[in-house]
């Protein structure tokens, strides 16, 4: 058995529960380089994005070339190198939602909150993203607010809900 568990992580508190999650996942996958995507998933879910320090920790633990890890992270849309925000608002712009007024929702968000698709507020509280289709065409227009699908929403309604979310934090 190799002792990769002792990889030092600079600038990272060892008590950070998120790092423990990643370390546990690495151990569970027995430090196999093939498990890179699974481990990146764990890291992405724990942090909401992939900080560079975390990437280099995973790279060293799996003995992978850094460029290979970076290549994998930039290839898949699921992974993000920048923070997506504490709260996320995913507006579906698939065909059905588009016809039912997804653009109006995006316009209202931009007018009310000053955020365009793909942007995050300066205080990192809210990030707005778009998806091509979330597979909920019967609920069009659909918005996913913090992993919760909002069905048949109006632009005003969604901005209100977002304001409630940000306000309660």
């Amino acid at each position, binding site marked *: 058995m190799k002792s990769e568990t002792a990889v030092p992580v600079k600038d990272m508190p060892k008590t950070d529960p998120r790092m423990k999650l990643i370390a546990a996942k690495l151990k569970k996958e027995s430090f196999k380089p093939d498990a890179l995507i699974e481990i990146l998933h764990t890291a992405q879910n724990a942090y909401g994005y992939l900080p560079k320090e975390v990437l*280099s920790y995973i790279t060293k633990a799996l003995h992978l070339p*850094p*460029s290979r890890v970076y290549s994998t992270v930039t290839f898949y849309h699921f992974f993000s190198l920048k923070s997506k925000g504490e709260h996320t608002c995913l507006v579906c712009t698939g065909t059905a939602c588009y016809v039912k007024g997804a653009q109006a929702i995006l316009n209202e968000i931009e007018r009310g909150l000053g955020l365009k698709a793909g942007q995050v507020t300066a205080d990192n509280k809210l990030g707005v993203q778009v998806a091509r289709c979330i597979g909920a065409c019967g609920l069009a227009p659909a918005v996913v607010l913090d992993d919760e699908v909002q069905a048949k929403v109006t632009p005003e309604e969604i901005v209100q809900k977002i304001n409630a979310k940000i306000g309660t934090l």
Partner: protein
Amino acid sequence: MNTIPIIIDEKKLEVDPGKTILEVCRENEIEILTMCHLKGVLDIGACRLCLVEIEGINKLLSACTTKVAANMIIRTNTDRIKKYQRITTELFFAERNHVCAVCVANGKCELQDLGYKVGLDHIRYPHLFPQCEVDTSHPWYVMDHNRCIMCTRCVRVCNEVEGAHNWDVMNRGHQVRVISDFNSPWGESVTCTSCGKCLHACPTGAIWPKAIVQGQLQKNPGMINELVEKRKMKL
């Protein structure tokens, strides 16, 4: 070993099974245009220049990744293939900022030679003119993304022959770029051994040594295969 009969451009040949169409063509002096192929490293069929017609198959298949099979009837110079070669070449030139007149590889460039071979006189597609970086951070070499055609020969040489895996490819579609480590400057790479094999593998002026001016560039892509063969011999 038993040989199998195939026909390439009406020419009857007896060849060893297990070889690719490209290998057979090169052995028999049948010209196939290639860009991403580099003898000694894995073929990936990315450039789509070596497409050939095979009787009974509707699609054009890449000669570098297709193995010969008994009684295959292959054509390498039909009008359809020539049309696609021309399109592919034009797209190479339209994708990044290729200016031969100011390029260090002028006269020693595989992309330029390809342009002459397909008779490129103008480009029918709008140029993308992307903003590309020139990485001069390495003490000896320069990486100019303007001249990169994403053949990934450098990536494969670095990984398969040198074993350093300094290079890889990031992003997708027209945003792809060859990167060093975590998309950091080449000079700060912790994996690069400065061996210079990527420089010889590069078909264009994208990777070149510093302190060199136009006309002085010497690239030796054949060296890669010689290295691979010598390592197999373990002298």
